[in-house]
């Protein structure tokens, strides 16, 4: 069974293009002045500037962590520009006022800023590099009391909420990248769902990283008041670049009593070429606090891009009966590396968590699942079910699992399973016999492998995820 791998492996990264728009880019380097400039450009209040500066001071004393199972050349934080915004930046009333070049870029990306998508009922906050271009559908959401805007707008229009919750889940000194993000975050989403409201549409955000040497540092904050529900989708794409680009985002979720937050991600950042050059470094801190009783936070992710993925979307289950879930598909092909997983911290009574992680390694990819399930002393009746499965395609890749289980309460019930497998030649043969090409066979089998995770995604995302996986696996069979 031989396939013309070479041709398939040359498949260009579909989204690798650059938009030539006038951009205002800060000079490279990180120091207090750059931070003050960012804060001034965004017209921020004093308390936020002080918060940024304190985080920066802390960051200077911290050491970059080296424990993950990934290898990369050291990042020179002084050679990155921390701010890039397209020049025409007035607030827009309608889509017709958008810079045509930017509009064309978004059309190419398939971002739904047009009527068709509006009918589909998805509100979009499209972020072009560091500044929000437009926030559509603010009005429709406002009718139900839902606030969905850029974090910069939220600081201006809802400062009490931002001040109350920013850093509530991920404090500034939490880790090296969170501290960096706190100092230089330039945008992201802010979502507030008032008491008892079920958000009428799925909220979505697209990101891009454009300018060379501009790392993107988004900060997202989602607050779900008592009895509310929101489903949030995050999908990313980036242009092809030679220099590595850093993406150190922070996402904080707060779920009050009886509230539910569903956070889904499709990550398709530029993964680097076949030699491992270029590609995005995706070092993200994502965490949710189930503060109220019966609250529920669910993370679903499909990670196919980035040269290096390093993230552990986590849940702190504080409220009694709270539930945390993590569903993940992580793919590493060519020279990609991933060290990802989750942390479920059980604090309240009768809390439960579910972890389903599917790792697929192909090419020279190295895929690591790292997870923590911690049951606190008072977390009686805690339940956890974990299943980590790895699939290896080819003999040059690696799949690793490092699950940590720490139990301090005798009534906890924990179950952990992990398995590793490969796509059998007989399975591919079976499919080929029935007229499928080898690549389609692999696609089929892999999608079956990921079924448990895909079914957690909102519908449009599920479709895109399956397509994405197929594209990302091209060139891996043989």
């Amino acid at each position, binding site marked *: 069974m031989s396939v013309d791998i070479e041709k398939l492996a040359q498949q260009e990264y579909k989204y690798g293009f650059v938009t030539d728009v006038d951009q205002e880019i800060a000079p490279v380097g990180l120091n207090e002045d750059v931070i003050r400039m960012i804060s001034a450009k965004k017209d921020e209040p004093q308390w936020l500037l002080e918060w940024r500066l304190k985080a920066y001071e802390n960051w200077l004393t911290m050491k970059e962590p080296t424990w993950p199972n990934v290898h990369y050349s050291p990042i020179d934080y002084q050679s990155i520009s921390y701010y890039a915004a397209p020049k025409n930046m007035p607030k827009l009333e309608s889509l017709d006022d958008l810079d045509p070049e930017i509009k064309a870029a978004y059309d190419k990306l398939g971002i739904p800023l047009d009527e068709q998508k509006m009918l589909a009922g998805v509100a979009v906050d499209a972020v072009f590099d560091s500044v929000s271009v437009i926030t559509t559908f603010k009005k429709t959401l406002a009718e139900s009391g839902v606030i969905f805007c850029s974090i910069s707008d939220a600081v201006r229009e809802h400062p009490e909420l931002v001040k109350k919750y920013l850093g509530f889940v991920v404090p500034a000194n939490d880790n090296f990248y969170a501290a960096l993000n706190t100092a230089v975050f330039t945008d992201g989403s802010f979502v507030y769902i008032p008491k008892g409201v079920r958000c009428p549409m799925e909220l979505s955000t697209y990101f891009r990283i454009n300018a060379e040497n501009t790392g993107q540092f988004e900060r997202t904050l989602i607050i779900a008041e008592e009895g509310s529900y929101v489903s949030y989708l995050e999908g990313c794409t980036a242009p092809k670049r030679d220099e590595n680009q850093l993406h150190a985002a922070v996402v904080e979720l707060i779920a009050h009593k009886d509230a539910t937050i569903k956070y889904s991600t499709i990550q398709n950042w530029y993964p680097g070429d076949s030699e491992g050059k270029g590609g995005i470094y995706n070092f993200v801190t994502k965490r949710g606090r189930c503060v109220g009783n019966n609250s529920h936070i669910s993370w679903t992710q499909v990670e196919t891009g980035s040269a290096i993925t390093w993230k552990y979307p986590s849940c702190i289950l504080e409220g009694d009966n709270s539930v945390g879930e993590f569903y993940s598909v992580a793919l590493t092909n060519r020279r990609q590396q991933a060290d990802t997983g989750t942390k479920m911290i059980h604090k309240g009574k009768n809390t439960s968590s579910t972890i389903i992680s599917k790792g697929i390694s192909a090419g020279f990819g190295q895929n690591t699942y790292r997870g923590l399930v911690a049951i606190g002393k008072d977390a009686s009746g805690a339940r956890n079910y974990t299943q980590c499965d790895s699939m290896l*395609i080819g003999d040059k890749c690696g799949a690793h699992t490092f*699950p*940590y289980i720490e139990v301090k309460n005798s009534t906890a019930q*924990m179950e952990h*399973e*992990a*398995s590793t*497998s*490969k796509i059998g030649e007989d399975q591919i043969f079976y499919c080929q016999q029935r007229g499928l090409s080898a690549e389609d066979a692999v696609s089929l089998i892999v999608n079956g492998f990921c079924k448990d995770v895909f079914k957690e995604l909102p519908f449009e995302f599920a479709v895109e995820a399956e397509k994405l996986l197929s594209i990302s696996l091209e060139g891996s069979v043989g």
Partner: protein
Amino acid sequence: MSITLSEKDNGYIEGFAGFEKNAPGYELGWLKSIREQAIAKFSELGFPTLQDEDWRFTNVAPIARSSFEILENGHDKVSASDLAPFQFEDTDVTELVFVNGRYSQELSTHSPLPKGVIVKNLAEAMVSEQEILQNNLAKYADFKEEAFTALNTAFMEDGGFVYIPKGAIVETPIHLLYISTDGDTASITNPRNLIIAENNSQANIIEHYASLADNVYLSNVVTEIVVGENSTIGHYMIELESKKAFNISTLRVQQARSSNIRSHSVLLGGSLVRNNVHPVLAGEGCDSLINGLYMSNHRQHMDNYMKVEHASPHCDSRQLYNGILDGRSRGVFHGRIIVHKDAQKTDAKQTNRNLILSDTAQIDTKPQLEIYADDVKCTHGATIGQIDENALFYLRSRGISEEASRDIIMHAFTNETLESMSVDSVKNYCYNLVTNWFEQRKQEQKV
């Protein structure tokens, strides 16, 4: 003259200088060189800290911050009757007894063994079996990366040496019994065992660590087992150290083609225990069974670190570790399976099950898979919980009292591990140990 080792003022280096000149095998150039490299490495590495990933759940600062003495002889404190509680019920016995780490000829027993089989203490083997030693000693246990192994390699002076020639089948279990006696100061011993089984041979070896008192001491053990082609080795490690003792043991196994190792660990004593088991399946078609039972109570801390390395294709490994934790004790299980690039058709399975009997016991478990080959079958599983309510109900509904039902379930749990022991005398001995553990627990609960 006793030598004191401590981190203060370069105590370990100074102590080594004094120790080296009087150590067995000092005149052997190759051995002198190994000891010196080892102390240099130990100096460089220092004791592991909580920031070392492999020691993340076990704080050895109580060892690092204490000083220990390498004692002079303590043979006169032990009589044959003292050994009785630690002996097996076999009629033919090959038993080497070490008191405070040093061989005692008077207390040991030798029975007839098949031709060519050598069982003697390491210090003597350094004189009479130089060629075998030079080719094998310290060739497998890693003294360059592991601090405790480096410490043992620098200060090794005695232990068990077992050599099984081609084709020999040894029926009598070979018992290496280490006894610690009471003392005024905290002492350290570095037992070093070397077991070599040539092709097509079979034997069972038991390492046994026990104490006659309740004092503080450190047993820092390293055992290397080289298993030849088609050979089968049964290995047992029974740890019954004093309730204030520290026991750090490292078992490094090197398996040749089609060889078979069945290693059973039973940890019951000690205050801080670390059990490292590292088999390397270097030849094709090997089989490895790594079995363990740890039972802890009060403030005991038991850490089991497994590293099963599949370096060759078509090998099978099974790790089955069961733990019972009571009181304020703390258990750790770190089970790594590493499958190298060319180790296709590996079949590896690992299970760690923990039964927690108190509200204050803790367990940290980290089953780990590192896989670099794609045609493999690897699974691992870990469970933690209390006694299954359904099982309890089933027994009680048949008229069995709650207490007896709990006993039955707990015994069934421990028997899972003991059942796979093939040497009956050792299995029965372990059954008794486990029964005593449950008995003692009941007595304490009544108080």
